[in-house]
């Protein structure tokens, strides 16, 4: 079994700050780490490897510093790591990002056939959730998103439970295929000492757009179909009405009256 996990380096969620004057994101100084959702994706890949034998590869597209999340992946049980890094990728939307990742996956696949690609549900920065389904579209592989449990995996296929608003759907996907997973899928383990040592020594394979044979007309802010034209901080309510009273009863009566008056109930 050869599993490819996709991970992205994102700001640690509690470190995100917005410049109040410009409404822009202050990236400098913000600590980054592996997108929290990708920890679950990687863990599930490692669990499946432990059950079925094989190898876990990890790919990321990102600036040079994103190498850190690949080393972290080794510490968490990955075997081989690949980084797509090139100025040509800068500013890509999900259409272009998924194209680049699919081209990278194709190149890995040529050397060693991939059975399964696992993505997180979404990132904690731009959080579109597009990338998993879109990689599968470029590769023309079947996919499932919002996967919360692997029911069964063997040599031929994987059976998964997918979360919907009203229940659970069970799907069978033959390899090769792509799944995007929610956090319920796994419990990320703590990094082992051995893993940390391996992380330091690991070789990070680095590829440019040319290395993966990507069409540069499909990459980067100049060529991708969507563009962020404006960003601003949302307006937030910060002047709560304090519902006071001598005791719980009084407060409750006052709250119910306020909610009724404003037709919320």
């Amino acid at each position, binding site marked *: 079994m050869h599993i490819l996990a996709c991970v992205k380096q994102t700001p640690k969620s509690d470190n995100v700050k917005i410049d109040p004057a410009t409404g822009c994101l202050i990236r400098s100084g913000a600590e980054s780490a592996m997108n929290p959702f990708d920890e679950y994706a990687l863990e599930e890949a490692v669990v499946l490897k432990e059950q079925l034998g094989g190898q876990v590869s990890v790919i990321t597209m990102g600036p040079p510093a994103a190498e850190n999340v690949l080393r972290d992946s080794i510490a968490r049980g990955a075997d081989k790591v690949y980084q797509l890094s090139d100025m040509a990728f800068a500013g890509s939307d999900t259409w272009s990002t998924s194209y680049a990742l699919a081209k990278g996956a194709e190149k890995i696949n040529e050397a060693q056939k991939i059975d399964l690609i696992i993505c997180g549900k979404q990132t904690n920065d731009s*959080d579109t959730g597009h990338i998993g389904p879109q990689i599968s579209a470029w590769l023309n592989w079947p996919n499932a998103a919002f996967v919360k449990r692997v029911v069964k995996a063997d040599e031929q296929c994987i059976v998964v439970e997918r979360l919907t608003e009203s229940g659970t759907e069970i*799907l069978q996907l033959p390899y090769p295929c792509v799944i995007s997973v929610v956090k319920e899928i796994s419990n990320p383990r703590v990094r082992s000492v051995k893993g940390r040592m391996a992380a330091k020594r690991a070789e990070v394979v680095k590829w440019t757009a040319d290395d993966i044979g990507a069409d540069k007309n499909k990459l980067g802010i100049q060529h991708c179909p*969507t563009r962020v034209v404006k960003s601003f901080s949302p307006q937030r309510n910060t002047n709560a009405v304090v519902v006071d009273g001598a005791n719980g009863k009084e407060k409750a009566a006052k709250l119910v009256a306020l909610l009724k008056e404003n037709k919320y109930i």
Partner: protein
Amino acid sequence: MKEWKNVWILAEVAQDKISPTAYELLTAGRSLADALGEKLCAVLLGHDVKKFAQDLLDHGADAVYVCDDVSLQHYVDDVYAKTLNGMIQAYKPNKFLLPATNLGRSLSAKTAIFAGTGLTADATEVMINPSDGQMHATRPTFGGNLMATITCARTRPEMCSLRPMSYPKAACVPGKKGEVIEFAFDAEKYTSLAKFLQFIKSEGEGLDLSETDVIVAGGRGLGKAEGFDLLYKLAERLGGAVAASRAPVDNGWIEYRRQIGLTGRTIKPKLYIACGISGQIQHMAGCSGADVIVAINKDPNAPIMKMAHYAVEGDLYEVIPAILETLEK
């Protein structure tokens, strides 16, 4: 690009019912169609779904495109995305809104690649820029800390998934006339290697979170799993549903599908009552779109006591029974 015309919305069907998101998309789509002077069209995909076409006309669609086939009975990504792309290439819509439900988010993403176009994710507002007729879709990102407006200038259709409950439901005018256009399913082309095996309806009590105007949510402050019984009582009294912050989910007090926040669900009810929830940013990311937030917390300095619209300081085990009592009167 002139040949790309009209505003489309995807009317999701779940368990043999039109999803309420369809009516919300008809409201959003109507404002785009009117601004452009184009038609508003709904798309129905599924098995035995043609019967819903009149309902969509009644709710404001000028035309309905239907692809009705037994192969579409269940949602398999490839089959749906290829069919939808077939319809896009055949009829060339200008804008295309889909619901940002689980189905809509994965379907819109895959379809956008097949159609070779851009997609804005999970927007809460869409409008037409009067100078060039492009769609401006605005969406919360970074856990609700940053709003971003996205455009798709060069490719058509401009696609966008729209967060449930961002728009009111369109009004119903029974008997409205409009065209119903059937699109033939191509069993040779619209295939997938994936197989749908089974659907299991969730056993959780009560209403689905995306279909209710009132949500009563509990946090670590409940102290125990049984604490939710009280919340179910209040939710039932208000005709709403029960949700949670991450802490009770991690503690196994309640199922994950009820978690609100960055790693859970985003909801947009009229009324959100947060009980024993401190209001960490990752939680607020999921509920800050509520029309009104009530916080019940014994710590007046908990962050949620500032972010809520109404802050009630007190022990939830005292305040909630008192609310129930008041409501009985």
